[in-house]
Structure formats: C-alpha cells, structure tokens
C-alpha cells in the first residue's frame, strides 16, 4: 500500500513540473494533495483490480477442474475485463468480486454434490 502512495506522488510531481504556472498559483500544500488523490486512487484501483481479476480467473479455473463451471461466471469475468478496459474501475471491481462469489458457490455445489446426488436416484 505504501508503495502505491509513493508511486502516485511521483506521478503527481511529474505532472506538476509540467505546469510551472499552476505550481506557482497553488503554492499552498493543500490543493496539491487534493489533486494527487484521484491519480493515486486510480493507480491503487488498477492494482487492486489486477489482483482481483487474477483471483477470479483462478477460481473459475478451479470450477472448470471440478466440472461445475457456471456460464454466468464467464459473463461476469467478461464484464469485468471490458469495464477495466473502458476505465470504469468501480464496475470492473464489482464484476470481479461477483465472479469470485459465484465461483465459491459453484465450488461448494461441486463439493456437496459429491454425495447429495445419490438421494435423487429412484429406488
């Protein structure tokens, strides 16, 4: 997390160097920090998303491995990637999180069905 802040500040300072005039006008510390926030947040979000989507895809692969993959999961993964490409990180993260949740349910289904199916066989 700390690294992200440093990274964000570097990006901001590079941006700040470009506009000397602006730097003079807003010499006070406060507005500068306010300006930095969205950039930092953006970087942090992108990093968070990369971790999330990786986790979502790994879990999906696990559901495939136990033969209980759900189609809706593919939709969520696709929506997540498309939203990220379009820069809508809120939507991207929400979809990745949904995919993770759904994969966990699918894995639970696979586990409980290992025995549950027997009860449904007509006797």
């Amino acid at each position, binding site marked *: 997390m700390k690294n992200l802040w440093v990274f964000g500040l570097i990006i901001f300072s590079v941006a700040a160097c470009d506009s000397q005039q602006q730097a003079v006008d807003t010499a006070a510390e406060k507005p500068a920090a306010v300006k930095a926030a969205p950039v930092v947040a953006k970087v942090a979000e992108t990093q968070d998303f990369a971790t999330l989507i990786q986790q979502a895809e790994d879990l999906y692969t696990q559901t*495939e491995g136990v033969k209980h993959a*759900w189609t*809706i999961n*593919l939709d969520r993964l696709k929506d997540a990637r498309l939203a990220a490409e379009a820069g809508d990180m809120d939507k991207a993260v929400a979809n990745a999180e949904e995919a993770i949740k759904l994969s966990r349910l699918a894995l639970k289904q696979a586990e409980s*069905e290992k*025995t549950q*199916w027997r009860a*449904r066989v*007509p006797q």
Partner: protein
Amino acid sequence: MKWINLSALFLASIIAVPAQADSLADSAANPATNPEADRQALRNLYQQKFPNIGLADFKDGVYAIDAKMREQWLELEDFPPYEIAIDEGEELYNTPFANGKSYADCFGDDPGIKHNYPLFDQARGGVVTLEIAINECREENGEAALPWLVGELAQISAYMAYNSRGKNFDIKIDSPEAVAAYADGKQFYYTRRGQMNFECGSCHQQKVGQMLRAERTSPSLGHATQWPVYRGRWQYVGNIQKRFQECNIQVRAVPFEAQSEEYRNLEYFLTYMSNGMELNGPGSRR
C-alpha cells in the same frame, strides 16, 4: 540406491494409505451399481406417476403425456420435417468414399443398427456413440471426420435411425469397466449443476410435465428413442448431445464438449434407461 528405494517405499505407503481408506469409504457409501435395478426403478416411478399411460408410449416423449400437443404433433408427422434429412442421409450413406469403400463396409448391409448404440468398447475402455462409429468409419477410409452435432453427421444418423425404427434398444453393460462408465453417467445425471442448481431429473423426473418457459418438460423414460430430432427452433436435425448442451446452458452450467467422456457416459446411462423400448427416430419436436 538402497536409501532411494526405502524412501520411495515410504512415500508409496503414505500415499497408499489414504487412497485405500478413501476407496473403502466410497464403496461403503456406494453399493454396487446395478443398471437393471435402476432401469426397473425408473419404470416403476413412471408407472406410479402416470398410471394411465403404458410404459411403451413414453417413446413419444412429451407427446405421450399431453393430448393436445400430441394431436398437433401427429398432424405435423403427416409431412415430417425430418424427411429431407433422411433422404440426404441416405444419399450420403450410399455414396462411396474416395477409396471405393462405403459405410456398408463398416456396418454391414443393414444400416439399422442404432439400437445397439452407444456401446462400451472394452479394447479402448470407453463408450462409443453411433456418431463416433460413423466418423471412425470415415477416417479409416481416408475421409475427414464430420462435425458432431448437426449437418451431414446428423443426416447420416437420421437415415440410420430411420432404418432402426421398430427395433428395441439393446444396450449392453457387461463388464466392470462398462458398469463404471454407466455409473459415471448416472452420477452426472443426478448431479445439480449451474447457478440454477438443477440436475437433469429436476425437470425431467420431479417436475416432469410442468411448464417451463412455454415448454412442457418431457419424461426421462424414453429420452433416447427418437434421435436425431428435427426441432422447430433449430429448423434442422440435430443429435442428442446438442440437447445435452442446451439443457446444461438452461441452468447456467457451462456445457461440455460434444462426445466428451462426460456426455458419452451420460448418453450411455440415459439410453440404458430406455433399454427394451422401441426406436422411433428421427423425431420432430417443437
């Protein structure tokens, strides 16, 4: 060297112990699979659910249990939409391969052999569907395999099914390996899948005959008799595994590949449930 052998033995013993415990636990929870008892139990279920319908009538699928739909279906059968597929299949079947041989060299003089499929091939240790047999015949004679679900392969099976009309399914399960493939298909059938958390029997046994998005669900008994099928929605003839995929997708489960081990074993199980019943394919469905 000695050390390596000993450690290998040690490793083997710790791996073997849990495996053995596992299989013991499994066989305790898993009484020997008896396909014939399963088939009888299913027939009894339908006898109880539909006391006024003869078991042989379930070869007509949903039209066995819905008089109004049956009437429309019989009207349609006057000009059956699968007729073209039979004709095209016949022509394909009788056209010699480039090497001068033909399907008859693989299957004999009577193309009506669908009642024996799927079969378990002991040599390869797996289930062989009619579609696999057709494609293997092609490949043995230097022809390319055809796509599994629709098109020429479905037309050839339509022609073979037509020639099998009136024969009864004679599916054999006569080795421990064949029983294992059947058991796998049976487990697949009764396992809930997809986000909707349904197994095949949810719609085709428990809720059989109920309306589901403007379709009445058909009985599982007789589910194998009429393939391939011309469906109004498809506007062409397709094979049973296409239907498996659609039913998986309906419950939001990712479908399996056509002719995958999963679907071959499923088809083996499902067809065995129709064993002894009359074939009446190709069929037409809405």
